[in-house]
């Protein structure tokens, strides 16, 4: 479980998050949704201890992320930020392999090799495994980064807008993989997602954020409701049930 307790965060004088509290259940996929600038990325970075809160605490699996050794946390949670500029010339296989670093500290064994291959296959990267990152398209590079995070094989997987640059096929594939990890392996994926229909289809739990606070938090079916979503995005949204799934119409 991820327990967020009265988190405050500010940059200079401007308050970004104000007294945010929420609990994200273990073994479920949570989607964080909300308008631009709501504080979704900030909250994800705080959970992943990439930045420090001004006040409040966050626990992941009972570990206070501010006080737990970084290398211990690296075996519990993995995070991919929204923007990733990688200037190094690494081969895809090498990059994905670095996902094993928290476990191996640079001494990989045969099992790690299998994990790397598994992650490459999952993201359909085998044909490019020996290419350098700068010889890939934006979407392929994004998949390589996601493969590295999956290769880290942590219980908590935090991804900030992972569908950026991904085509329909790979978006769907990634969501299925993550859902499967949650339901079969008991992992806890937490994703910031813009396309709310992906959230509707795959997420078990929704955390809706607006203006630096929690707007709503609950099971997907409860959040996917006309008035709630319309108010969240300040846009008229109607939910239709299509083939037993909520589907949001917004244009």
């Amino acid at each position: 479980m991820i327990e967020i307790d009265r988190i405050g965060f500010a940059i200079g004088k401007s308050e970004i998050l104000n007294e945010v509290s929420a609990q994200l259940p273990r073994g479920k996929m949570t989607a964080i949704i909300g308008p631009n600038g709501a504080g979704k990325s900030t909250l994800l970075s705080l959970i992943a201890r990439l930045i420090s809160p001004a006040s409040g605490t966050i626990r992941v699996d009972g570990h206070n992320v501010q006080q737990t050794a970084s290398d211990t946390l690296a075996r519990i949670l993995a995070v991919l930020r929204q923007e990733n500029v990688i200037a190094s010339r690494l081969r895809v296989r090498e990059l994905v392999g670095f996902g094993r670093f928290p476990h191996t500290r640079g001494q990989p064994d045969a099992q790690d090799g299998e994990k790397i291959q598994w992650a490459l296959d999952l993201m359909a990267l085998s044909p490019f495994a020996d290419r350098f990152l700068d010889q890939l398209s934006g979407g392929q590079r994004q998949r390589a980064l996601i493969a590295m995070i999956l290769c880290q094989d942590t219980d908590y997987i935090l991804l900030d807008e992972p569908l950026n640059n991904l085509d329909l096929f790979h978006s769907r594939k990634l969501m299925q993989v993550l859902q499967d990890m949650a339901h079969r392996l008991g992992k806890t994926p937490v994703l910031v997602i813009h396309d709310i229909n992906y959230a509707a289809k795959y997420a078990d739990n929704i955390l809706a954020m607006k203006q630096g606070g929690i707007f709503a938090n609950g099971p997907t079916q409860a959040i996917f409701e006309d008035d709630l979503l319309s108010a969240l995005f300040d846009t008229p949204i109607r939910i239709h049930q299509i083939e037993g799934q909520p589907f949001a119409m917004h244009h």
Partner: protein
Amino acid sequence: MACRTTNAMPLIAAILLAVVLCILSIFTGVADINIAALFNDPQALWLLAVSRLPRTLAVVLTGGSLAICGLIMQMLARNKFVEPTTAGTGQGAALGIIVITIMAPQASLTIKMLAAIAAALCSTAIFLALIRKLPTDQPFLVPLVGLVFGGFVGAIATFIAYQLDLLQYQDVWMNGEFSGVMLGRYEMLWFAAALSLAAYFVADQFTIIGLGKDMALNLGLGYRQIMLLGMTIICVVTALSVVTVGMIPFVGLVVPNIASRMMGDNLRASLPWVAGLGAMMVLASDLIARLVRYPYEVPVSVVFGIFGSAFFLWLLFSRPAHAR
């Protein structure tokens, strides 16, 4: 991290080339030494042991460690176009020696060395702090800031040296050459080489640092410790080489970039090649420096500087297009 089967041919060719360059280096010089003389002429043997061999070793050690330092600095700065002698580290070391020479002229070489290292560390830390504020999508700003900053620190050193009539000393530190190398006067370079080779044991950590702070944190790396370790290696090696042979610019830039183009930036794989290539390129430059105006010598820094700056320009203009 990946296990790749590599062809042995390049390795054999590289070793052969290295042996040839070393032999050429040892047997090049004003006094004629030939192999036969080594067996019956004690004077030739003495010259070899006291001057020729130390010089060749000094060149190899300096070239290898400067190349590694360039590579590490590029990882810390996350930028391919920086290296210690163009971004303030070397200039900082020179400034440190000048200041300590003025404040404590009687200070031992060890004290002077420490002053050079401390000043180099300060200078490098300031540079890395400066570039942190630059946008990551404009890689050319970083070397630009480095050149301006390095020029600034160097100018302070020159100004002080000028005021106090120390310019000829400063010239020795700023323009690297190996003609003064003798037995008993270059041994600190062994320490520099050992230190830079120690980087091999944290090669993965340096590669991860090159992926950025967030990625390093995500993988559980002690970001500050590795940054500090990298800076220490860079500064100690640079200061040691500035004091013993003087500054040789562009080695740390040219060599890692060639290696990066050829085999990428996974340090565990590329570091030994960077060291070897650095040693060989400086060895070749030193040979040219000794032969081009024979029997006089040109500073090796001038020779490498000419090739290096040309290569630097080519590098800036021929960056492979990135599909973003």
